[in-house]
């Protein structure tokens, strides 16, 4: 047990002292990994924040029920009855064609248009607030109402929210693809760095093997190097991400102010940071493992 611990401590201290000797190279390596991980990180934060924003808007979808122009008052009453008995409806509001016409004439901008019209073109309308905010349920309700006699058009006001959701879905997929591609790039970067280190330490590896070093002993310091690159790169990515988000927030705050909102991009939480660092460590380990295994195999072939 103590021997085992000794070997690990020794491997870590060896790697750290090598990194201290090449401080600049190590720092640049951290930055490269940081930038690589930072890109999907930024996208994630933006999409995630927009998702939350969409969630708060989407909680009030409305269905506008426009009746046919020639609908008689008794038909209107029948529709009102149906709305009252519909269990999915939270509440509803009736706006008669005359009331709508008055509003149109009052409101600036449309008053000029309204005055040019000879008669009221507007239909009677109900504005319905569904109980559920689930897009599928609301859509089902909208389609049901569309079938009611006397209804010209049942319009779902939350359509733009659906479009935003579709876009966010695309954004999430983009993040996944980007993360996969950059993860692959990271394995290549770390693998190549480790490979170069192996080449410079080739004598040492060969001598160690001749005097009884196991593959594991030879691999160990390189695996630690990969993991440390991952940790350093992950922390660098986190710092960059925090910096970029803070920078974005300066502009986001201005835009939000114009919409009388106090929306801001949230900094990545502990879960996200842990995920970033952990995935960096795993990719680092993977990259160096592949590099060492390949090199060990190659050394063997040369010898025989």
């Amino acid at each position: 047990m103590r021997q085992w611990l000794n070997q690990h401590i020794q491997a870590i201290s060896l790697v750290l002292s090598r990194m201290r000797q090449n401080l600049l190279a190590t720092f640049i390596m951290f930055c490269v990994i940081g930038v690589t991980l930072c890109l999907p990180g930024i996208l994630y934060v933006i999409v995630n924040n927009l998702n939350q924003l969409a969630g708060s808007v989407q909680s009030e979808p409305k269905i506008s029920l426009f009746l046919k122009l020639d609908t008689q008052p008794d038909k209107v009453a029948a529709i009102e009855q149906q709305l009252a008995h519909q269990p999915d409806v939270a509440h509803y509001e009736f706006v008669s064609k005359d009331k709508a016409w008055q509003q149109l004439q009052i409101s600036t901008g449309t008053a000029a248009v309204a005055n040019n019209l000879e008669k009221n073109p507007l239909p009677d309308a109900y504005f319905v607030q569904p109980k559920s905010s689930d897009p599928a349920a609301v859509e089902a309700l909208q389609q049901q109402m569309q079938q009611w006699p006397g209804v010209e058009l049942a319009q779902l006001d939350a359509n733009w929210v659906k479009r935003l959701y579709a876009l966010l879905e695309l954004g999430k997929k983009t993040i996944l693809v980007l993360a996969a591609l950059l993860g692959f790039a990271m394995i290549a970067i770390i693998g190549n760095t480790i490979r170069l280190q192996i080449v410079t330490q080739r004598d040492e590896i060969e001598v160690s093997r001749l005097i009884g070093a196991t593959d594991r002993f030879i691999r160990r310091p390189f695996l630690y190097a990969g993991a440390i690159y991952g940790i350093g790169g992950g922390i660098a990515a986190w710092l960059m991400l925090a910096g970029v988000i803070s920078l974005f927030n300066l502009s986001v705050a201005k835009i939000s102010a114009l919409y009388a909102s106090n929306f801001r991009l949230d900094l990545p939480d502990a879960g996200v940071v842990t995920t970033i660092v952990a995935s960096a460590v795993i990719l680092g380990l993977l990259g160096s493992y592949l590099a060492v295994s390949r090199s060990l195999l190659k050394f063997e072939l040369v010898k025989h």
Partner: protein
Amino acid sequence: MIKFDQVSKRYPGSSEALRGVSFEIPEGALAFVTGHSGAGKSTLLKLMAAIERPSTGTVLIGNQNVSKLRRAAIPFIRRKFGLIFQDHKLLYDRNCFENVALPLYINGITGIDAAKRVRAALDKVGLLNKEKAMPITLSGGEQQRLAIARAVVSRPSILLADEPTGNLDENYATEILSLFYAFQQVGVTVVIATHDASGISAASGKILHLDHGELKHEVTP
């Protein structure tokens, strides 16, 4: 301790380096492998240390068949050996102390335990005052002694030396040979390959004379 039975070794694209070699070296013995260069001395030593595998025949080290070892078991059989190479194979980016400590690190021995044993080994070869020196600053004889210190620091039961006196003048050579005699005195099996048969007599140890890959004669004291 070391037993060869009808061992042949052929490298790809060349004639046989060893042909049907059989001999036995008992535990605690001192053996010289002699012969001209290219006679197969280095190959013989490499087969002992499982650096090469025989094409045919069996190599037994302490009743273990080295030629049949799994790859993963090879590092552990190597730890029984102290290897001294003609070109020293020292690490020139580390100082003397760290060079000698390497076999101990491989065995997971570090710290004060390791330091004690490294200093003891350096003391044995007369390099205790050079522990902080870099190997490149040492003379040829000193580098060879450093290599010996590294070979003995993990107290191996067998010491294999390939041309340990090859590039040294006579004084140094005698000095180094006497070091090997000293290790044999404390029970280590020592095998030395040398092209220089002068100064070796049957009185000092077993002699295996190779000629073109064949064991021509064997002298036992």
